[in-house]
C-alpha cells in the first residue's frame, strides 16, 4: 500500500515538502520563523557590502558561486532575505540560488552555532568508537547531527577523517582537537570550556 500523501504538510512559512521536514525536523523552536525575519534587517550594512561585491564582478554567467560564498562569509548563513537580495541584484532566479545553496555543504541555510563541533567518522575513529562519542554529544546537547542547539551555542556535525588517526576517536571544536575520547564521560567537561 502506498503511504498516504502528505498534503501541504510540514509547512515552513509557506513552504511545503519533504525537504522542509528534513531541514526543520531539528529546529527546537518551531514557532520561530526559520527564514529569520527580524534577525537580519534590510538596513544591515552587510547588504551594501554584498551589493558592491556583486557590482565588482562582471555581470556574466557563473557569478552565483562567488556571490554565495561572499554572502556566506559575511552573514554566516544564507537566509531567505539574503538569497532574495542576491537574486534581485544578479538577476539569477531565487530557485536557482536556493538550488546551489542547498547543493553544496559549504553553504548553510540556517544560522550556525557560535562553536562548530566536528566528530570524526573516519575509519580509525569509527573503529575506536566515534559513534559512541557522537551519541554522547547528541544526548548532552539535545540536538540532532547537522543541527544547532537552541541557544545557538553549538552546531554538531559528523565529518570525514580529520587526519589525526593516532588520537582516535577524536573531535574538533572550532580549531581545537580533542583526542582519545574512549571515555565519553570527559565530554561534558570539554563542552563546559566554551561560552
Amino acid at each position: 500500500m502506498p503511504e498516504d500523501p502528505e498534503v501541504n504538510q510540514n509547512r515552513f512559512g509557506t513552504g511545503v515538502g519533504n525537504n522542509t521536514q528534513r531541514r526543520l525536523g531539528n529546529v527546537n523552536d518551531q514557532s520561530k520563523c526559520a527564514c529569520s525575519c527580524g534577525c537580519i534587517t534590510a538596513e544591515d550594512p552587510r547588504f551594501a557590502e554584498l551589493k558592491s561585491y556583486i557590482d565588482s564582478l562582471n555581470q556574466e554567467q557563473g557569478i552565483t558561486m562567488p556571490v554565495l560564498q561572499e554572502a556566506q562569509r559575511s552573514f554566516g548563513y544564507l537566509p531567505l532575505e539574503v538569497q532574495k537580495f542576491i537574486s534581485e541584484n544578479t538577476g539569477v532566479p531565487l530557485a536557482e540560488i536556493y538550488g546551489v545553496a542547498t547543493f553544496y555543504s559549504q553553504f548553510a541555510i540556517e544560522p550556525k552555532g557560535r562553536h562548530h563541533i566536528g566528530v570524526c567518522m573516519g575509519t580509525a575513529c569509527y573503529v575506536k568508537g566515534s559513534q559512541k562519542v557522537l551519541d554522547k554529544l547528541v544526548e548532552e546537547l539535545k540536538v540532532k547531527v547537522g543541527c544547532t542547539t537552541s541557544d545557538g551555542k553549538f552546531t554538531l556535525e559528523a565529518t570525514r577523517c580529520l587526519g589525526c588517526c593516532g588520537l582516535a576517536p577524536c573531535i574538533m571544536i572550532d580549531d581545537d582537537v580533542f583526542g582519545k575520547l574512549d571515555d565519553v564521560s570527559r565530554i561534558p567537561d570539554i563542552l563546559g570550556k566554551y561560552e
Partner: protein
Amino acid sequence: MGNVNVTVNGIEVSVPDNYTAMLAARQAGVEIPSLCFLKDVNEIGACRVCVVEADIKGVPMRNLPASCILQVAEGMNIRTNTAKVRKAVKTNVELILANHNRECLTCKRNQNCELQSLCDELGIDQVRFQGEKRKPTIDNLSHSIIRDASKCILCGRCISTCRDVQGIGVLDFTHRGFQTEVAPAFDFSMRDVDCVYCGQCIEACPVAALTERQYIDEVFEAIEDPEKFVVVQTAPAVRASLGEEFGMPVGTRVTGKMVAALRRLGFDKVFDTNFSADLTILEEGTELLNRVTTGGVLPMITSCSPGWIRFCEMKYPEFLPNLSTCKSPQQMFGAILKTYYAQKMGIDPKKIVSVSVMPCTSKKTEANRPEMEVDGLRDVDYSLTTRELGDMIKRARIRFANLPDETADSILGEYTGAGVIFGATGGVMEAALRTVADILTGKDLKDIEYNAVRGLDGVKEASVVLPIDGKDTEIKVAIAHGTANAAKVLDAVKAGEKDYHFIEVMACPGGCVHGGGQSIVSAQVRLDVNPKANRAAALYAEDEACVKRKSHDNEEVKALYNEFLGKPNSHLSHKLLHTHYAPRKVYECQA
C-alpha cells in the same frame, strides 16, 4: 551549414551538420526513445534513455553517448538497436522507476504519460530495483497548479521551460542526492512564489509531477443540482485542441462537436467566450482611442492574459498604468451573464453557476481574484482547462468523434472572426485594428488581414496609418508572446528605445493556442508537429469561414449595448467590465 553523411542502423543518410544523432536517426526512419529531451527547450542529456552506440570512421566513441546532444560528424556510424544499447536503456529506465511513485492506475496522467509509454515500449515487466521511495507530498495551495514531488523524475523540462522560455525560473533542482527535488526556493508553495500559473511547466512535464487543479467534480455536482442554472463559455483556443484529447491530429478544429458535447454534458446554456472577446474589442478599442486622443498613458497594453497580468504586477509594476483596465473576456462574460442575461431571462443570478473552459491554468487564479465579482457574485465560479473538459466528456462516455456539429446558444453565443483569433498570438491586436480602423475611417474596410501581426516570431512590430482628429497618424503596435518576450519589449520601452501606442502580450508562447491548459503533446510528437502553428491555423481558418469578421458587427454585442450597457466605456461598462491592478509581493515569509 553543410551536410554530413552518417549511418544509422546500417541506413545511410545525409543530414545538416548541426543535427544531433537523434534527429539524424529520425531522418533514417529510426525513433530513439527519450525522456528528459524537449526539443529546443531541454537538451541536456540527463536521463540517458536516448543513448546509442557510435563510432566515427571506425573509431568507437567512449561509453554510450546521449543521442539528444550528440552532434553528427562525417562518417558517424550510429547504432540504436544493439544488445548493449537495449540493456543500458532498459536499466536506466528501471533506475528511474526505483524511486518513482508508481500509482499509475490512479494517476492523472494514466495513458498520457511518457514514462509509462517508455516502460511499455521497452518491455519492462518488473521493477528489479526496490528501495526507498519518494514520499507523496502534494502542494495544492495555489488555485492553478498542483505539484507532487513523488511523481517527479528530475528530467528538468519544467525548469528549462520556466527559466529559459518564460524567463522566470520558479522551479529548480534543490538539495542533492536522494533528496533532490524540483521545487521552488525554500520549499515555498506554488501559491507564494513568482509563478504566473501559465502552466507551460505542465505542458512540459512528461509525468504527473505538475498538474492543474481540477474542478470537474464541482461542475458535475452543479449540473446535477436542479436548483442551479449552469452556463458554460468556451475560449477561442479550446476548439483547436480539444479534439487531441480524443486522438485527433494536433490542431483539429472541433467547434461544433465541442458545443454538442457540452449540451450532452447537461449545461443549461452553451455560450462562447468569443462573444465576450468581441465585447472586449469594443471596450479596449474605445479605451485605446480615448488614450490616444486625450493624452492618456501610452503604450496601452492588453489585459486578456492573466499570466501576463500577474507577471506585470510582480516584475514590472511601473507598467500597471499602461495595462488596459478591461477585464479579460472570461471575466467580462461572467459579469454580463449574471447581470444582463439574468435580468433579461428572469433568472435569479444567485442560482447561476458560471463555468468557463479555458486553454489556461492561470484563468483559475484569475477567476479567484477577490475583485472579480459584481455585487458579491463571482464572475466565474469554476474555470476548467481543455484537458478537464476532455476528461468530463470521457467520464460521461460521450463518443466525441461521432457527435454532430452544433452551434452555441443565443444571446451570448454569437461571435465574429475577430473573436476567434484571440486565441493566437497577434489575434487580439488584429481584432482591435479591424475595429479601430473602421471607426477612425468611418468605412467598412475590406482589407482586414493584418499579416504582420501573425506568426510565431517572439516579438512582432507593425504600424498602420489612421486618421485621428482629421490628421493621418501612424499607430505603432507590438506583439509579444511568452513572458520572456514581454520582458524584452517592456525593457525596450522603459529604456526609451521603442515607442508604441498599443502592445499585445500573451503569457504563453504562441498565445492561448499553446496555453498551459491545452491538450499535452508529447516530446516525441513535438519533433514533427508544432502545436502552436497547427492550432493557430485552425483559428485563422475559422475566422476566414466567418461571415462577420469584425467585432463591432456582432449583433448580440450590439444588442447588449443598446439594451443594457449604453456605449463602450460607459459607467455601467466600467462597473462590470473593467478592473484594476496592484503590485504583488512574493516569497514573503508567513510565519
